[in-house]
């Protein structure tokens, strides 16, 4: 992540908080501008509601990473889903992994955001994350 531009001095990591994950996330939303959450398999509806409300109240962004968007029990403001990806720079025994082009679908809650598919470099050949230009 640091290679793609994350300033490690401005990020903290909480590994496997287990039972307390929702409390930890709520505490973090109190202070952080952005919280990325990888929740366990079962997400109680109440916990999701508390976190969404806390994020709104604190004007923080909550990004939830799940393998299926339906696992988060509330409608999200925006849902991003990687529909497909391909690695570039690597061949049959030559080159190396250098860039990945992902097709990302963007959907908004109640159709607020026009649904579309955006190609994104994750990362680009220069190591950054950006929309594939010319699209």
């Amino acid at each position, binding site marked *: *992540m*640091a*290679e*793609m531009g994350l*300033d*490690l*001095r*401005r*990020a*903290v*990591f*909480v*590994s496997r*908080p287990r039972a*307390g994950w929702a*409390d*930890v996330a709520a*505490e*973090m*939303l*109190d*202070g*952080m*501008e952005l919280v990325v959450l990888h929740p366990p398999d079962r997400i109680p509806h109440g916990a999701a509601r508390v976190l969404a409300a806390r994020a709104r109240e604190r004007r923080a962004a909550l990004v939830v990473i799940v393998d299926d968007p339906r696992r988060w029990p509330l409608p999200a403001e925006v849902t991003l889903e990687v529909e*497909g*990806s*391909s*690695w570039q*720079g*690597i*061949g*049959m*025994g*030559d*080159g*190396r*992994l*250098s860039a*990945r082009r992902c097709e990302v679908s963007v959907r908004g809650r109640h159709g607020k955001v026009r649904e579309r598919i955006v190609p994104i470099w994750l*990362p680009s050949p220069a*190591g950054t994350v950006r929309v594939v230009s010319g699209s």
Partner: protein
Amino acid sequence: MERLIVLRCPSLAREGQEGEELRRFAEVLTTVVRRCPFVQPVRLGLAVLPARAPSRFFGGERAVCDLLTDDLSDLLGDKVSLGAADGLFAATLAARGGLIVPAEGSAEFLAHLSMATLRRPELAATCQRLGVSTLGRFARLDVDRVIERFGTEGVHCHRVASGLEGELDGLRDPTIQTRLAALDEPPPLAVQPTFFGGTSLATERAQAAAWRVQRRFHPSMVQVARLRAGHDPSERAVLVPFASIGDLGTEALAPWPGQIPAPSPMTVLSTPEPVELVDPAGTPVTVDGRGLLTGVPGQIHLARSPRPDEVAAWAGPWPLTTRWWGDRRRRARLQVVTSSGVALLLGAEHGRWWMLGRYD
């Protein structure tokens, strides 16, 4: 490298049964905080403060040291010593002798000191046998030879001894801040970690949140990432508890021989998993003595997957040879993309393949 003043209280360096030393050390910090708000504990009996601002304010580093010695005389008598140098390692050693090492003079100062100051008894013993007894002579060893003989850890010590890196791993006690915080009295403000790089309101709020989680749940639960030099992704990123941080992620990363260029795998396995790699006919593919593949990879079978996957693309192998006392450890790295689009980093060692990471 940052100019630092280190304060040593040898009488408080070892913890007694009553925990009296910890309490007294907290008092020392509280006293110092009044003059220099940015003081941080390093370990019991040892604290560090950035030298620049206070020395400008009080008229030089020597003046700061004298002033603090004076302040602490009621508490500790003459059992305190202060010193200044570039980087925490040199400053700690300067404090032993009450020395002010001139700016940029750390390497020269360190050159005369014994290898024992690195607190790596095995390294010191081996070097002693090689006739290398001072940091200066160790620093003059060729870095490639140091890698061969002593690995990553040795290179770190080598960089510290050469004055290229300011902080020796293991110098800080990661528990000291939380232990101080756990004392009945509220800790002096500066004992709380001060980073996130700034002092804005948002920064303060972020710090407070991390601090609260740590208090409420577990002291080592909140972590920060630190990058360092190394061959493999697993060597290059480490998580350390939030409270124990010095200069975070700011270590300049030197180019490292044998390092695969970015991007790095997003998921790095702490324990590599065995992997079967075979050619289209089903014959195992390995790396031969010249560092080449013995066949064309056709299928890959991961430990956790029920069936093998087709190999869609691959790159490498990149050889990686490290020596430990002449015992050659021959390793190689291979990047593989499966037909389902998953990219993996594999390692070969002793004729077997291991999955080291996934490019998620």
